Structures are given as structure tokens and as C-alpha cells.
């Protein structure tokens, strides 16, 4: 525990520094991305690692393991995550959803054999998407500047800080045995990357400038999640034609 807190400190400091920098310096054209030059460097660093290591491993994972095994792995981690999602529902005062997500954990942990099967989705308890960043956003905390984190990728100052809270609450990061913990974190990461293989191939096809495309898509995605899929319409430039 103490070890983890110590490790979290430099990350925290880096995020705060980034936030402070974002406050005074504006290097980019976009007011939501004042750290653009730094972010671009980090983005291309992440991209290089993804191309060289993560993507090939994820492809292998997808090629070697049959679909039902992959979905079992994905469901298992998803079930663990549902506990934290449930807590975030409650923190946002969404009691009905909190109850639903509690039901999901209960149902999938038992009938779904420790979460390997997601039967709850089939009986009308669909998976929700919550995390601490969304909870902060729901209470009105603005997202702050766009921030590309090492390995983890797109984020914002708010979501980056909130991620540290998510990690503290994450059972997978709480596994005591270091090698089991690293294996679990690694498998989850690769599994998620594998699920995104199709999506990233679509981005490659779609984007003129990948960095800008991913940034805009990410910011919209987070906004939509904070409002549970019903974000208020923004003032539309198009209508000033």
C-alpha cells in the first residue's frame, strides 16, 4: 500500500505540473490543448510502442485464443470493474443504476462463475460505463486541458488525476503478489487492445491527422460519457452560415 502511494506521487506531481503549465502557457492553436507540442511528442512515442509491441501482441492474442476464451477474460475483468462502477453510480446519486450494477456483480459473480460469463447483460442489466473522472465531471468539474499520458494515451488533467483514484480502487492493482499482479494487469491491457484493433484500423482509414482526430474523438467521447450518452447540444457554428 505504502509502496503504491510512493509510486503515485511522481505521477501526481507530473500531472499537477502539466496542469499548471497548461494554465500559463499556450503553445497550440487549440485552447483545449495548450500542451499540444508535448502531447504530440507523447502521442508519437505511444504510437511507436503500440506499433512495435502492443499491437502485434494484441493481434497474436486475438489470433491464438478462441473467441469464447477472450470474452471470458474480458468478462472477468469487466465484472471486477463493475464494483467500482457501482460505487461511482452512487457517488453521482444514480441510485437505480447503482442498484443495477450491484445486481450485475451479484449475478455474474455467482451464475456467471466468478464473472467469466456476462449473463446479466442478457437478462436486461446492460453494462454501464463509469469511472472517477466521470463522477468529477458529473459534479461539474471541467475536464481541463487535453493530456496524452505515457502508454495509457489520451486523457485530460481531470481524468488523469481521477485515474489515480481509479487505480487505488482497482482490485487488479491490489493483488499482493507482484508477478500475479503484473500478469493480470498485462493480460487485461492486451485484451483491451485486442478489442480495439478494429476501431484503430478505422481511425487509420479516417484520419487526415491522426493526433487531432484522436484528440477530438476522445474529448467528445468523455463528454458523452459524463452525460451518459445524452450530452446537451453545443452551439453549432454551422447555423451561423
Amino acid at each position, binding site marked *: 500500500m505504502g509502496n503504491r502511494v510512493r509510486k503515485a506521487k511522481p505521477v501526481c506531481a507530473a500531472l499537477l505540473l502539466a496542469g499548471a503549465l497548461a494554465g500559463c502557457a499556450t503553445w497550440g*492553436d*487549440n485552447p483545449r490543448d495548450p500542451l499540444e507540442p508535448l502531447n504530440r511528442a507523447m502521442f508519437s512515442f505511444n504510437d511507436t510502442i503500440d506499433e512495435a509491441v502492443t499491437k502485434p501482441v494484441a*493481434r497474436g492474442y486475438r489470433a491464438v485464443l478462441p*473467441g469464447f476464451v*477472450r*470474452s471470458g477474460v*474480458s*468478462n472477468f475483468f*469487466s465484472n471486477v470493474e463493475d464494483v467500482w462502477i457501482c460505487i461511482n453510480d452512487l457517488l453521482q446519486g444514480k441510485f437505480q443504476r447503482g442498484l443495477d450494477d450491484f445486481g450485475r456483480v451479484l449475478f455474474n459473480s455467482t451464475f456467471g462463475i466468478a464473472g467469466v460469463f*456476462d449473463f446479466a*447483460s442478457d437478462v436486461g442489466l*446492460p*453494462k454501464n*460505463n463509469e469511472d472517477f473522472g466521470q463522477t468529477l465531471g458529473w459534479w461539474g468539474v471541467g475536464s481541463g486541458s487535453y493530456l496524452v499520458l505515457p502508454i495509457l494515451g489520451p486523457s485530460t488533467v481531470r481524468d488523469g488525476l481521477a485515474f489515480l483514484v481509479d487505480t487505488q480502487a482497482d482490485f487488479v492493482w491490489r493483488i499482493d503478489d507482484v508477478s500475479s499482479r503484473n500478469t493480470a494487469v498485462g493480460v487485461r491491457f492486451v485484451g483491451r487492445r485486442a*478489442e480495439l*484493433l*478494429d476501431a484503430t*484500423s*478505422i481511425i487509420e*482509414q*479516417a*484520419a*487526415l*491527422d491522426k493526433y*487531432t*482526430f484522436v*484528440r*477530438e*474523438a476522445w474529448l*467528445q*467521447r468523455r*463528454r*458523452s*460519457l459524463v452525460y451518459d*450518452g445524452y*450530452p446537451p447540444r453545443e452551439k*453549432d*457554428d*454551422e447555423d*451561423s*452560415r
Partner: protein
Amino acid sequence: MKTRVRMAPMNLLRILALAAVVPVAHAQITAPDALVKSITEEVVTVLKQDKEIQAGNPKKVAELIETKILPHFNFTRMTRIAMARNWRLASPEQQKVLTTEFQTLLVRTYSTALSNFRDQQIDYKPLRARPEDTDVTVKTEVRQPGSPQPVGIDYEMEKTPQGWKVYDVKVGGVSLVTTYRETFASEVRSKGVDGLIKSLAEKNRQGGQAKSGKT
């Protein structure tokens, strides 16, 4: 008198013709959610049966999109939204070329997405709109096998005399159209409208060479 007799059948014909056309035109404005559902079901059926599409034959996918999907999209409006303020900087000819190039890019992107389609399950959400609304959002949700998290696909639609047209698609809350805004704006800022057209054309040319729907 004579002329009147000759005119009468002509008028009658016209009235008959009108009578035949008008109610049909009215009846053919399908409700937006029904339209999305029928097109989606039709396309999914083809995707599931067609072995060539599953193998990633780009020509077949493009054909499917052009016949079934394109007629229901308003690409001029999509381009206008993506261009935002800069739309007015473009001449009518530039606007036309931009629309064509952007359409090509979106269709390419769409075909990549379609050739990745496997056994997804699509749910249609009830439409939240009043009958007199002319601008609605049709919400659907796609569940991928192996991933517990469903992905929302929303169609922003407007009512036109030619029926309901899609002017934006949002995947997981991400707009296919406004995501391009910043890119377009910075291209126009640094290279002008013609520079943007050139970049789009270049991107489409590359995509045409390399694309086969593989991951």
C-alpha cells in the same frame, strides 16, 4: 367549344397523374427510426450472406454502400458542419469538390467498419421525438461478441421533401463529422481551402491503394 373538348382529357390525365403521385409521395416519408431499422436490417442481411464482403472485397462493400446507404445521407450538410465557419470562405465550386472528397473519405471509413462486421447484435432504442419534429436522433446500440460494453450508434436526421436524411453519425458519442472540424480548420488556416481539398484528395488516393478491410 372544340378546344374545350380536346382540353378536357388532357386535364383529366393531369389530375389523374397528380392523384397518383401525390399520395405516394406522402406515404413514402417513412418514420426516421423505421428507416434506420429497415436499412440496417437490409445491409446486415447482405453482410451476413455475402462471402466476398466477408473476405474484404472492397468493390462489393462500396457497391452495397452506394446503393443502400448513400441515398439516405446529406453529404453537403455533413461537409458544411465539418467546415463550420470556413464553409463561407469556399467558393461554390470548392464547396462541391470538398463535398465529393469528404464523401469519398467517409464512405471509405464506413466500408472499413462494415467489413469488420461479424456477429454484432443491434438494438434499436425507442425514438424520443414528437410527430411534428423535423430534426431527430435515432439511437441504436451495438453489442459486440466478446465485449460486455455496448457501443451506441446515433443517427442525427433531418426531414426533407425527399424523406429523412442522415447528417451525422455518432459512434460512442463521437461525431463522425465534427471530429473533422479541428483538422479542417487547421488545414484551412495553414494552406487555405485548396490546401484542404488537396489533402483530402491525397488521403483518398492513398486509401484507394492500400485498403482491403484487413486489420
